[in-house]
């Protein structure tokens, strides 16, 4: 699977998922993680099929709260940390499904339940493919690794 196809799929999927279900547009896209400051929230899941691998999403905690508020139709100040986590897990689930369906249309994948990670954990290592997106006022990092999860 060419990395350029994965990068394209990451971008198209993020654009579609964020606009359709989180009512947030992408202002710009670039390579992942040039420099991350402040508290982050990350979710990761594994997928099994052909190929297998892992997928992750990281956002600044405050951005995660705004994304959750938009998804749940709530005021950002009223969104709790567990709710933010649930929404970021759901975002990871939808993005992963969308990316995989773009690169392998006829292959069925089994996706694990997304799990929250230590803040910032999704951005410290090299990945098979990764993109950073600039949203209205913050960043969103999406990455994918091919190969079985440890």
């Amino acid at each position, binding site marked *: 699977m060419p990395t350029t196809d994965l990068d394209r799929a990451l971008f198209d999927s993020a654009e579609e998922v964020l606009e359709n*279900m989180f009512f947030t547009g992408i202002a710009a896209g670039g390579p992942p993680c040039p420099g991350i400051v402040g508290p982050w929230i990350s979710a990761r899941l594994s997928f099994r099929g052909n190929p297998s691998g892992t997928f992750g999403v990281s956002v600044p905690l405050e951005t995660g709260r705004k994304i959750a508020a938009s998804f*749940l139709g709530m005021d950002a100040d009223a969104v709790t940390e567990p709710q933010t986590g649930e929404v970021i897990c759901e975002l990871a689930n939808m993005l992963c499904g969308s990316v995989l369906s773009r690169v392998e249309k006829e292959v069925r994948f089994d996706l694990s339940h997304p799990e929250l990670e230590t803040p910032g954990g999704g951005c410290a290592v090299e990945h098979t493919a990764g993109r950073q997106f600039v949203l209205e006022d913050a960043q969103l990092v999406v990455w994918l690794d091919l190969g079985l999860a440890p």
Partner: protein
Amino acid sequence: MAYNVLIVDDSPAMRSFVRRVLDLSGLAIGRCLEAGNGLEALDRLREEWVDVVLTDLNMPAMDGESLVRRMGADDCLRSIPLLVVSTDRTEGRVRQMLELGARGYVTKPFLPETLREEIERVLGAADANH
């Protein structure tokens, strides 16, 4: 007439989103029940009649495919229209679920109006059959 809906998804966030789409849809929604997996859904269906079931596929305890099979094998539940709402958009999977008895298949991410239109289509077809 208000329609009772059962939303089946292991993600509380997604259940809230679907509930919000229904609230904003203009559809006459009566009771909006929720279940976290297929087993819970069957329990709810034994307690209360609903007009349509919206179910995810990938869930713990009992997944959406098993729920479709169980409802299809049950004389009391077979007639309740079921819509699959899933991230899995492979053609083979969609075809399989429709063959098993699902009345429609909406892939995530979806536009809110897409879900509303699909529910309207399924409920309209159900009304026409009564």
